[in-house]
């Protein structure tokens, strides 16, 4: 099988270079970045892979001596049920290697899932019982920096340069002009479909839907012809999966919460109730209510629930990481009897493509990822922060080697030098469909860099979807209600 069995390779090569590179790449004037972002394409990524050697221990040894004796408490967003086994192994390897490299640092790490981390971390902060360092989802950095919980921390503090990281990612760790963290990984998802399902439904098996309107049409066609769900809609509340799948649709239609998809966002005007935003919500309504062409369980589902549906041949399309291919392989290994063959057929027919555009040709995806931060001592359990130990761990995680390995199957290295490592070369050969998600990076739009963003993305947006999809409100009412809630929230109130 060829690496890119997408039928859209030419489109990828042709469009990515000319993609509208918005706030993601735009940034303050800095020294030359280690990779040329203006040339970003699958070919360029391939050409730089394996061109440089990096010695993590030597680099981090300059930040914190390798014989340093200390203690570090650390919480991080770890692997969860929807991640592939490969990633679990890399997390295990990371902590083992860190302990070997810094044998005198007593590391007490705790993994939490995406959905639990914010709640637990907020609670710990109220009781001054936080860990010394934390790795948070990209949404969280601004909230905690604006409240004064985090110490200023920039890449230079751990031996790297600011220009080693995506400018868009650096914005997510900056508040009031001060940098409070370092990106560990940055991700953009892609559009996945089952070619066999497409074929049986009378669609071109090698062609992804070009627009979101096409997604609605394809989803209905798949459902009507085959009786299965067309598109893997996700609308659960308090689950990161929901905004990661709805925001590309919202932005594609030209809408937004604010003006976050503009090149220089100001987050002043609330646009959730704009005509474009309502059109995006209407598309979800059409699929869920009018056509009944998406999983009924979308309101209580996460992406982890879509994965078995897709593997069972019961779902035609979804948005996800390249890691979903590895997840499917893991799930297939666990299947028995005829299910095993059925799963293999789905895997053979998995196709990845660019996320569809809106009616005006706008393509967008969430520029996601995670950041790592150091807490101020007064909020930490015991009232002390072992800074050298924290910096040793942060240097390690954000190094070209580990920022790549820890994002091996599903994401991309936060440190751009990771793209130049030998592990990137190996990854390009091992991880199928990686090209598509790296190709989506220039279309990435970061969440609004506001302390209110977690509530907007995890509660208000899913509530808006649920209100419209359950019929509790009309599409117009749901969008107006959500816009009102965002206005109230920005004003410091709202129930």
């Amino acid at each position, binding site marked *: 099988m060829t690496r890119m069995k997408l039928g859209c390779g030419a489109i990828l090569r042709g469009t990515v270079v000319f993609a509208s590179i918005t706030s993601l790449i735009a940034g303050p004037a800095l020294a030359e970045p280690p990779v040329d972002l203006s040339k970003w394409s699958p070919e360029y990524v391939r050409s730089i892979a394996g061109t440089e050697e990096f010695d993590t221990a030597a680099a981090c040894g300059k930040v914190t001596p390798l014989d340093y004796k200390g203690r570090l408490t650390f919480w991080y967003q770890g692997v969860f049920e929807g991640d592939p086994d490969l990633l679990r192994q890399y997390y295990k390897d990371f902590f083992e290697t860190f302990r070997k490299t810094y044998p005198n640092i007593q590391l007490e790490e705790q993994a939490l899932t995406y959905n639990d981390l914010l709640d637990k971390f907020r609670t710990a902060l109220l009781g001054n019982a936080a860990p010394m360092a934390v790795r948070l989802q990209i949404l969280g950095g601004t909230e905690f920096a604006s409240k004064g919980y985090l110490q200023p921390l920039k890449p230079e503090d751990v031996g790297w340069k600011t220009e080693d990281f995506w400018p868009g990612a650096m914005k997510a760790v900056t508040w009031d002009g001060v940098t409070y963290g370092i990106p560990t990984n940055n991700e953009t998802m892609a559009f996945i479909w089952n070619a066999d399902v497409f074929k049986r439904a009378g669609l071109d098996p090698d062609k992804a839907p070009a627009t979101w309107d096409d997604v609605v049409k394809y989803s209905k066609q798949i459902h009507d012809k085959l009786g299965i769900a067309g598109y893997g809609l996700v609308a659960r*509340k308090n689950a990161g999966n929901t905004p990661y799948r709805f925001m590309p649709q919202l932005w594609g239609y030209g809408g937004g919460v604010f003006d976050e998809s503009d090149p220089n966002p100001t987050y002043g005007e609330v646009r959730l109730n704009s005509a474009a935003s309502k059109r995006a919500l209407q598309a979800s309504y059409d699929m869920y209510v009018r056509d009944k062409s998406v999983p009924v369980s979308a309101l209580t589902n996460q992406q982890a629930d879509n994965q078995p549906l897709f593997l069972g041949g019961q779902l035609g399309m979804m948005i996800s990481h390249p890691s979903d291919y590895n997840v499917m392989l893991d799930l297939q290994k666990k299947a028995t009897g005829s299910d095993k063959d059925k799963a293999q057929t789905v895997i053979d027919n998995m196709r990845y493509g660019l996320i569809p555009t809106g009616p005006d040709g706008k393509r967008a995806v969430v520029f996601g990822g995670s950041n790592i931060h150091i807490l101020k001592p007064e909020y930490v359990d015991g009232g002390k922060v072992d800074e050298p130990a924290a910096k040793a761990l942060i240097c390690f995680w954000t190094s070209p080697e580990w920022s790549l390995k820890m994002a091996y199957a599903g994401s991309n290295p936060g440190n751009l030098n990771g793209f130049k490592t030998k592990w990137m070369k190996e990854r390009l050969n091992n991880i199928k469909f990686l090209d598509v998600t790296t190709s989506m990076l220039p279309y990435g739009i970061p969440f609004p860099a506001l302390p209110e963003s977690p*509530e907007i993305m995890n509660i208000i947006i899913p509530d808006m979807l*649920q209100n419209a999809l359950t019929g509790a409100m009309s599409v117009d009412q749901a969008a107006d209600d959500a816009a009102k809630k965002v206005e109230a929230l920005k004003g*410091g109130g709202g*129930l």
Partner: protein
Amino acid sequence: MTIVTGQAEAPRRPEPARSGMLRKVWVHRADYAYVLPAIVVMLLVIAYPIYYTVDLSFFATPPALQLKDKVFVGFDNYQAILTSDVFWRVTWNTLIWTLASTVISFALGFATALALHRDFMGRGILRAILIIPWVISAVAASYIWKWIYHSDFGVIGAILVGLGITDRPPNFIDSVGTVLPSLIVVNIWREFPFAMIMLMAGLQTVPEPLLAAAKVDGASAWQRFWHVTFPHLRNVSTVTILLLAVANFNSFIIPWIMTGGGPSNASHIWITHIYELAFGRQRWGVASAYSVLLFLILMTIGYFYVRALSGDKKEDPEA
């Protein structure tokens, strides 16, 4: 009744003139001394949090500020709660959830206890099986039920479709109309064994000679139950209902894990809503005001139940 004061052998000194409650306290001073350590611990772990929650309920805690930067707003949080649509919806959900879960769990537990009170082969095994829902972790049970109810590949849906009863799996937890009843079924499944155990213990106290005498006097099975068995179970029934009602008012695990209060707030009950306000949205002040209201409601229920429990007890003549 003999009251041990620890000073029984000492010559009685003339007691100062005291009346009512103070006199009772003085008489029972040794008893109070025994429970003092427990009271101190309770004050630390219960009274202070209650005080802090009441205090916090008068402050606004904007999500962009630390808790220490809270702003005094008087009764604004209470006013905002009582005038919000969500409050009344969540309150209605809570009442339905609590009443339905309590009444049906109790009735089912009662029926099962009566059935298991008779001697028959396999009674022990059946009793052990029926206790399982109460013994297993509520978290695990919630995840299992979520899978059983799943609107696309749930067990119930697969069986119904397989038997040709429906074309599509029924929508249990993704519909605003069916989600709450579906969760109540899970809650009853979890709770009725508790009522069953309590009432089975109560049934052991019903005197067999009394039942036999009633039978000899020609009482029917229903008359024996209503005039002999049921009166003996009055106290244990009151306690069981009180415990079930309080537990149901405070329920969290089942609705939170299975639906997170959704869809569209249709399965939010007070505790899940308070949790979301506090930990998901950081409205500590509003969440505290909600908690104070819930506390007052529970205390009122508790007061009336305690009164009902002790209503027929005579005043201690020595007190």
